[in-house]
């Protein structure tokens, strides 16, 4: 009797999980299948299994549609932005979490309050500022914008984590003779690594997919990032659905790999070494 009840609950759980997996992974599988079919095949029957697997579409996208350039542009912009965000964000968060000074909460509030502005409000002003400083249509300009839009959330998440680290740890390092900056590198950064990796993953995913700022601030085809490359296949009259799916797969694969690699590290970091 007891075993059957357990079996029922297990079956229900399995069923629920299967449904959720289908719901979450379904669109992804569909896109993946479309990425190896041509647009005319897709128009004939959107949900059909590929008759012939057109792997050459990936080569087409990579070489003929300039995806190689988009991919490297995205990589450079995102990697540099995420590194800058992690360093600046962690320093700012450490400072706000660790030091009592006049205006601490004010600085925190000012940084965090910028999160309330939707990008549509700031983008025209940003456009003008970047043109003024000769940063329009450049990767450096886009990186600066990316760092500034993601900094509030990064500081918010890291500050919350750093503030929970016990003060004794920092006092002990001071007694051991370390300066403030050394304490940051040798204590805050390694101990706070799970939080730093979390913000790195969030920032990478968000910036890798970022479209609005990129479409406004980059005009040269050679400087475009991946989301703009995908847009190229959306014409006024005809949408090249097949190539859009291929482009999306190229864009999404690195993110999946990064997430798979980092999330394991993340869990390791979270479970190892509680403070006391």
């Amino acid at each position: 009797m007891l075993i059957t009840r357990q079996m029922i609950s297990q079956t229900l759980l399995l069923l629920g999980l299967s449904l959720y997996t289908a719901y979450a992974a379904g669109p992804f599988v569909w896109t993946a299948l479309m990425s190896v079919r041509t647009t005319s095949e897709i128009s004939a029957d959107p949900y059909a299994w590929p008759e012939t697997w057109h792997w050459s579409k990936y080569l087409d996208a990579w070489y003929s549609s300039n995806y190689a350039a988009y991919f490297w542009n995205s990589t450079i912009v995102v990697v540099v932005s995420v590194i800058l965000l992690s360093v600046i964000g962690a320093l700012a968060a450490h400072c706000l979490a660790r030091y009592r000074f006049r205006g601490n909460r004010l600085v925190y509030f000012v940084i965090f309050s910028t999160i309330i502005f939707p990008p549509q409000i700031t983008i025209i002003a940003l456009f003008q500022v970047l043109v003024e400083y000769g940063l329009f249509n450049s990767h450096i300009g886009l990186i600066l914008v990316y760092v500034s839009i993601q900094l509030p959330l990064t500081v918010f998440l890291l500050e919350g984590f750093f503030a929970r680290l016990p003060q004794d740890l920092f006092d002990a390092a001071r007694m051991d003779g370390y300066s403030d900056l050394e304490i940051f590198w040798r204590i805050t950064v390694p101990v706070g690594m799970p939080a730093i990796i979390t913000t790195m993953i969030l920032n990478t995913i968000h910036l890798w997919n970022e479209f609005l700022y990129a479409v406004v601030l980059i005009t040269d085809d050679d400087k475009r990032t991946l989301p703009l490359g995908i847009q190229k296949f959306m014409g006024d009259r005809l949408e090249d659905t097949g190539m859009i799916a291929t482009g999306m797969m190229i864009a999404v694969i690195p993110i999946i790999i990064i997430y798979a690699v980092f999330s394991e590290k993340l869990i390791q970091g979270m479970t190892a070494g509680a403070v006391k």
Partner: protein
Amino acid sequence: MAIVQLKQLSKYYSGQSEPAVDAVSLTVDDGEFMVLLGPSGCGKSTTLRMVAGLENISAGELLIDDVLMNKIPAKDRDIAMVFQSYALYPHMTVRDNMAFGLRRRGIKGAELERRVRATAETIGLTPYLDRKPHALSGGQRQRVALGRAIVRNPKVFLLDEPLSNLDAALRVSTRSELVKQQRNLGTTMIYVT
């Protein structure tokens, strides 16, 4: 080896009318084991933190070997402190925890290893040198915290309720161990409990 003198030492926190520490005067002789005892919140820890250099001194003078220490930063006072929470660096092994302060003072290589080993030997930590703090019991962590202070061979030892996280039996044995260590080392110690 040092004489610690507190002259009218006071601590005021902004926004509080009563001082946290009110004109404490005290002399701890060279090699003396001084114990500060009192109810919680009476300012023992604050006094200790002022001696350590972790809190600014609002009024009065702190002298170690007749040198005024008020403005000297914690790292230059040659004082070691054992914290109530032990404050072990969670990402480092026991060896690295103990070596952390020595490395900062330019000790490395064979000399570093020799000193860490010698200290670990005296307090029975040798088998645990490669473990991280989370893999140790409460008593072992406490000994690492103590070892981290001993290995530096400081002028003054400060202990802030180092036994309060241990169970009763362990507390008694550690306490006698501590007294023994102090006699062996002959270091000036201030112990808050």
